[in-house]
């Protein structure tokens, strides 16, 4: 069972963005993403909101499929900035991996 960390958004803020909390999981980012597979990037944003660090680290490879093209950020109706949240998650993962 995955543990949640309610302070994870603060960690993410230090990694560059705190807008992920605005996401209401509408799925516009999934529809517009050129990867067009699964629930990327929405799923990662939900993990970030929940602070499901273990799941993020377990599925970290998925983050590097992101092209950082910014189309999700451009079209997000909530201003949740999914592209930058994904980039912040990459930074979090790289920092975790360097620490270990």
């Amino acid at each position, binding site marked *: 069972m995955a543990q949640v960390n309610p302070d994870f958004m603060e960690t993410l803020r230090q990694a560059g963005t705190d807008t992920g909390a605005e996401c209401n999981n509408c799925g516009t980012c999934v529809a517009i993403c050129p990867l067009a597979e699964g629930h990327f990037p929405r799923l990662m944003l939900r993990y970030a909101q929940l602070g499901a660090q273990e799941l993020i680290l377990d599925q970290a490879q998925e983050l590097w*499929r992101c092209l950082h093209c*910014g189309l999700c950020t451009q079209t997000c109706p909530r201003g949740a900035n999914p592209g930058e949240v994904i980039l912040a998650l990459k930074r979090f993962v790289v920092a975790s991996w360097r620490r270990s």
Partner: protein
Amino acid sequence: MYNHQDIISLLAANVRATKSPFGIPKPLVNTWWKGQGLGREGDVLLMTGLMYQLVPYIETVTRQLERFEDTRFMPYLAWARFVPKLLSGLGLAALTPAPAKDKAALHLRDIVAALRASGVSFGYRPELDEYSGILLYDLGDQESFVRHARLVAERLAQAGVRRIITVDPHTTYALKVLYPRYVGAQFEVRTYFEALDMGTGGGAVASPDAGGARLTLHDPCFYGRYLELSDLPRRLLGGLGHQCADVRECGAYTSCCGGPAEAVSPRLSARIGAGRAGQLAATGEQLVTMCPICLSNLEKAGANVLDLSAILARGLPRREPDQAAGPGQ
């Protein structure tokens, strides 16, 4: 798909040791300026960020990565970071075909020709022209990006550089947005087509042989979305008598060429590139772009694409080097 840790470790180690993501000695990569009569002094420094020059090497690397992606040999990439940088860099240089290197140089020479034609005064100092580190930023290796960016910015500042002309969207975004944000370096940064627009007073004067072609522009993500620079290339082309036939996915809503994924998954990159090439082909017109990565990836997808610089260089009246650039090298 390659392991992100292997890719990041390799690229970061290369940048740290050689200031280049591929470890190729700069004298081998940056040769386009020789024989161009470029002055060292000028109101503004031309900075290529080595992106056009690196593309032939990126293509070589991608071809190799493509061969081994998702095969049993893929994990061996983890050992690549232990290969001496100079050795791997020289090997990569030897594997990269000369015509591809010449083609990359041609785009930069076209940019210089267009700047000269519009009367923009600029200087070029090869020793200050460094890779911006943008790939490290995109891959999330913030620590390595900031370390490299600080080094590049400090050298520019020490040389008294305040104003910069850039030639590609990745370096432009790095210098214009990321350097001020993460290393506190403030430069006045313009793309070459912004400089051209200013040089021509917003109205390019076409040479007599400039043609009225119909063109479809592929806006690179960094220009179209992040920097909101889609209108200017269209205005310049319009001034030269060309018409732009846009696809729906243009400007701020442009679609990615797939290039940024090629380091971790050439297969994914090719799939995205093919999709974008298909969107652009809908107009049936000549495709144009202004990013070396987009150019390479769309060409790989089978599209016939021109670099914006080629059209601008042909469309603006030629000037001799000494009319714009000062004493030659």
